[in-house]
């Protein structure tokens, strides 16, 4: 297993709703053990892209391969290798955190339920796991959501705007958790965001997406000409100063 092994590749993804191209050409690859930032202004097609990555939306063109399995053709095998939080960490509010994890473990089978304790400790939720999700703060839901995403022991973790709505302590905790998962467990972590300053501290490589296309992709240094420009300047330049 080399460090540059590709665990997720999106090739020429496009999605058309009626006569509108929400995503017209998005391609990128994720490698084992890296944190990948997927940046773009609101409405750039980030969420639609993520929904295509995990099979919620069927691409009009292009395909997604996760750890060797095509999402469109071999859905179950591909989903076994990925965990995700799309938009908000929505869990069953009328169940406890533990019941939620058990619920999703049953969908995975293969001893996923035996990992619940370990994952709860990992996200520092082991003490509150038996409370109803209804009583959790957003940060706690986010953490249980990540524990859920890790139940199937995936190769890829997909997080959509993971720091949205978190307080500064929560943001720092999230950052540390993401770095740890990539560093210690060798996960590829995909993070979408429009908050540049947050992403800069977390990611190894980035892709900038605008109007449904990937405009630039590479390491932070590559994209910013060895740091000649700030990521913010570059981002605003590329997205022509549209509000983010």
């Amino acid at each position, binding site marked *: 297993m080399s460090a540059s092994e590709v665990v997720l590749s999106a090739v020429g993804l496009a999605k058309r709703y009626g006569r509108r191209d929400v995503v017209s050409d998005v391609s990128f690859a994720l490698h084992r053990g890296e944190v990948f930032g997927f940046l773009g202004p609101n409405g750039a097609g980030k*969420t*639609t892209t993520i*929904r295509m990555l*995990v*099979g*919620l*939306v*069927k691409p009009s063109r292009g395909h997604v391969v996760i750890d060797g399995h095509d999402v469109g053709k071999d*859905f*179950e*095998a591909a*989903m*076994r290798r*990925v965990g*995700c939080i*799309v*938009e*908000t960490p*929505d*869990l*069953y*509010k*009328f*169940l406890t955190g533990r*019941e939620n994890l058990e*619920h*999703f473990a*049953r*969908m*995975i*089978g293969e001893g996923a339920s035996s990992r619940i304790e370990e994952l709860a400790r990992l996200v520092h939720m082991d003490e509150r796991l038996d409370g109803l999700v209804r009583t959790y703060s957003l940060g706690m839901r986010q953490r249980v959501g990540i524990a*859920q995403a890790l139940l*199937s022991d995936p190769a890829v973790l997909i997080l959509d705007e993971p720091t949205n709505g978190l307080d500064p302590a929560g943001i720092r905790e999230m950052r540390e958790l993401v770095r740890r998962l990539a560093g210690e467990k060798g996960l590829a972590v995909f993070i979408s965001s429009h908050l540049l300053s947050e992403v800069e501290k977390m990611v190894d490589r980035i892709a900038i997406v605008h109007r449904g296309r990937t405009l630039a992709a590479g390491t932070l240094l590559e994209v910013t000409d060895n740091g000649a420009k700030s990521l913010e300047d570059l981002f605003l330049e590329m997205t022509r100063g549209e509000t983010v």
Partner: protein
Amino acid sequence: MRVMMGLVENECLKILKRKRFRIILIVLAALLCLVVFAQNRQIQNQRKDHPERDWRAQVEKRAGDLERQMNQRRGVPQQWKRWMQYESARLRYHLSRNLDPNVLTGPMFTRAFAGVGSVLLIPLLIAVFGADLVSSEFAEGTITLLLTRPVARWKVLASKVAAMILFTTLTLVAAFFLAWGISGFAFGWAGWGAPILTGFRLGGASLTAGLDLSGVRSVPLWLDTFAAWGLAWFSALAVGSVTLLLSVVFRSAAAAMGTMMATLVGGTILSRVASDWDGAKWFFVTNLPLPDFYAGLPTPFEGMTLMFSTLVLGAWAFAALVAAFLLFTRRDVTA
């Protein structure tokens, strides 16, 4: 297979934890108490009014009243006439066999409730938990998690169908035991072996032909009840399947439930008022009272039989499930 069992367990857990099912049981129990109380009062009043009369005289009078109304009054809807004709003939037949048609025991009440309940009450209760099954996953946002786990979409929906069947069955079983248990306090729990005359049928299309008695036979009450509740269960499954389709179509449980309730109430009204337009016999709601059709009560439209209604309901259930699967497995899940 292990995973499939787990999925069904998940769906059952969610139905139970949402507490809707408990509300259904409470509503059922409360309504049954009310009905039993009202019926008990009625019987006691009748006894008070005519303490001396024997049952034969009462039944004779009732049959006579019905026949007079039927023949005298003009402008009586066709359907009422058919019912009056049926009822008077049924009473006369009981008289000729020297059996009291009005004796009410807990088991008799339970048998009758299968027919009454399967028209509106049980379908409404099933709509209450069935409307939730898929739409709530969309409304609460959990659909994104549910459909990004390593389980194909058709399996997810299949587990929901299984849960629907399970809880529909449970609703019927609960309704049966609640009906028997509660009515037993007023009318006694015993009497399952009583002979029941069943198989009355209106003779042909003409009103004057009277009742076709060739199919009338005596069966023990428990057997008659078993058949009636089995048919009620079949109706309920058809309602559950249509509800499930609505739950897939709508993203809000309220919209699914509202549509289902409007359909049920609308269909019931339809079968009461529009007996001339027999196209309504193809609508699933008009076919729901299978236990009544089995008992030989007149059907709301010409050309309906127990077999016809069973097949129509089966076709609706099948079509609804196919549509639900096609929609659920192909639909893009957007915000």
